[in-house]
């Protein structure tokens, strides 16, 4: 009996056990997942403010969350953990996040080739139909995805 065949990548466990460092500093946590997507939660923290006048958080923490959510989504679609690195990530900031609100980041992997995984996602602060950011990017696996 092969244990490898029954292995299922669990993003909730990964975020609980394996994600210290920068993710922990931002307070990032697991929110939900599906076959090729993951949602993470970024709670409001005055330490993340980028514009002291308005209290709006900086764009960097949102990019960090979307980088992690889309990375987890690749492993979910793959069904396995694979060492990979972000090749590029573009973020469109549709509107500022509302001060005090938790931001939810939805990352999806929509295509995996031998070497490259293609991802996209949105972030919102309560209403998924009113996103505050949209992202698109790619990951590369040095030893390949397949």
């Amino acid at each position: 009996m092969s244990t490898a065949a029954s292995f299922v990548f669990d993003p909730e466990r990964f975020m609980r056990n394996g994600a210290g460092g920068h993710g922990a500093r931002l307070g990032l946590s697991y929110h939900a997942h599906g076959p090729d997507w993951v949602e993470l939660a970024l709670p409001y923290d005055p330490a993340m403010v980028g514009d002291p006048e308005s209290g709006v958080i900086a764009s960097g923490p949102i990019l960090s969350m979307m980088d992690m959510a889309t990375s987890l989504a690749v492993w979910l679609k793959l069904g396995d953990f694979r060492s990979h690195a972000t090749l590029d990530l573009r973020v469109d900031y549709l509107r500022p996040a509302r001060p005090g609100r938790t931001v939810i980041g939805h990352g999806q992997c929509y295509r995996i080739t031998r070497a490259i995984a293609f991802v996209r996602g949105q972030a919102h602060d309560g209403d998924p139909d009113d996103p505050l950011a949209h992202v698109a990017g790619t990951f590369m696996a040095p030893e390949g995805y397949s």
Partner: protein
Amino acid sequence: MLPPYADLLGLSIDPEDEDGCRLIMPFGDGVVGRPGFLHGGAISGLLEMAAIVALRQALEGEGGGRIKPINVTVDFMRGGREKPTYGSGIVTRLGKRVANVEAAAWQDDRATPIAAARLNYLVIRE
């Protein structure tokens, strides 16, 4: 001068830089991704802060104003290792309503960046 988010990343303005635009991010627990490497999000945060410092400085020379991020595209070229990272921004165009900024992050040598970004900002003149 720098917002709270810059403190979260541990950023400071490099005192050895004559233009006062170059930022330093020390390596530490708060900016680690996979063990031994910088988190891509922390590198991106450094790039965005470097872009904002450069843009604010350019705007001050023209009477000041507020800025809002429109978008950012980050290219990751090399893994960031356990050492200080430098970040610097260049305003490629400062228009009436929009500014185009480029930023680079490097460790040992500016000629071998670990990441680079293109950023667009909406400018609201005072």
